[in-house]
């Protein structure tokens, strides 16, 4: 494993606090859907900071996409969200992690559950699922503060609008919903999970990603509902 030079190819605002960053990484071997990388920044005096970020893209190629949300008081994420520009250089190590990964030959129905920027590795899975033309059912639940805080919202809506039942999107808003939103506003609870996620009888593979509190609450509810703990994979994100 070694650090590779990465050049920022493009940066695009996703929400008020999040940005999509495309990196060109010569020698990148491609990555599976759900994997992450370590990103290293070096200041002029030699000081270094390393953080892990999920990869929003999947498959072969030397161009990859990250989705980064600004962590208040963080050290690396504010730089990536507010400062980094096309042409800037940094280092990455990866692809990393074989656990929180969706394999396109897995025929199981899949339930994705993302809180905040926990959506990033899940959209990689949704993209890989679509790119592979896989016929397994994907259902995705996103928890966001407001409609303006959903990362990759246009792309998720487009996937949801695709005819057929291969992909379905649900959103739970924790602060404010769209006008005339018929569902409760608040944190994802057992009732919201029962309303919006695949039933136990489907025995779905479940991927949960978000802040630690979100991941632990959701995983506990899923087990209480009756899902097999061995079918639930979790990833707690950091990246401050």
């Amino acid at each position, binding site marked *: *494993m070694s650090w590779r030079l990465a050049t920022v190819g493009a940066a695009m605002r996703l929400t008020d606090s999040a940005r999509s960053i495309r990196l060109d990484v010569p020698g990148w071997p491609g990555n599976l859907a759900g994997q*992450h*990388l*370590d990103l290293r920044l070096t200041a002029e005096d030699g000081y*270094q900071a*390393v953080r*892990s970020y999920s990869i929003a893209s999947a498959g072969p190629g030397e161009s990859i996409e990250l989705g980064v949300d600004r962590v208040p*008081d*963080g050290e690396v994420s504010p730089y990536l969200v507010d400062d980094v520009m096309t042409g800037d250089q940094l280092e990455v*190590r*990866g692809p*990393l*992690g*074989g*656990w*929180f990964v969706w394999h396109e030959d897995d025929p199981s129905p899949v339930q994705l559950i993302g809180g905040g920027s926990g959506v990033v590795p899940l959209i990689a899975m949704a993209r890989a699922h679509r790119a592979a033309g896989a016929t397994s059912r994907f259902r995705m639940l996103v928890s966001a503060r407001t409609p303006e805080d959903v990362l990759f919202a246009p792309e998720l809506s487009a996937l949801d609008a695709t005819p057929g039942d291969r992909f379905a999107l649900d959103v739970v808003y924790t602060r404010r919903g769209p006008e005339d939103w018929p569902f409760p506003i608040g944190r994802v609870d057992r009732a919201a999970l029962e309303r919006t996620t695949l039933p136990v009888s489907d025995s779905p593979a479940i991927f949960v990603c978000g802040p*630690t509190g979100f991941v632990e609450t959701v995983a506990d509810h899923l087990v209480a509902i009756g899902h097999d703990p061995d079918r639930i994979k*979790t*990833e*707690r*994100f*950091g990246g*401050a």
Partner: protein
Amino acid sequence: MDERLDGNVLAGMLGELFDFDATTAKGRCRHCGDEAVLAEAHVIAHDGEFVARCRKCDAELLVAMEHHDDVVVSFRGLRGLGIHPAY
């Protein structure tokens, strides 16, 4: 700032030591015997220092540090680490 994460975050550092993905290896907690992949351990991270704890009993499984190109990992809370291709 301390970040409460999980074993997934250890993949890069452990990749400096091993040429396989150690986060998918199953470890056995020396304290309570729980078996789980390292990815599922609870991890507190701060400035390149990581303490991984058992998801069941909270005992320390491993302690790791990476500062610049130095990587040091202690596995003293693990009674073993195994690769199972089925996982």
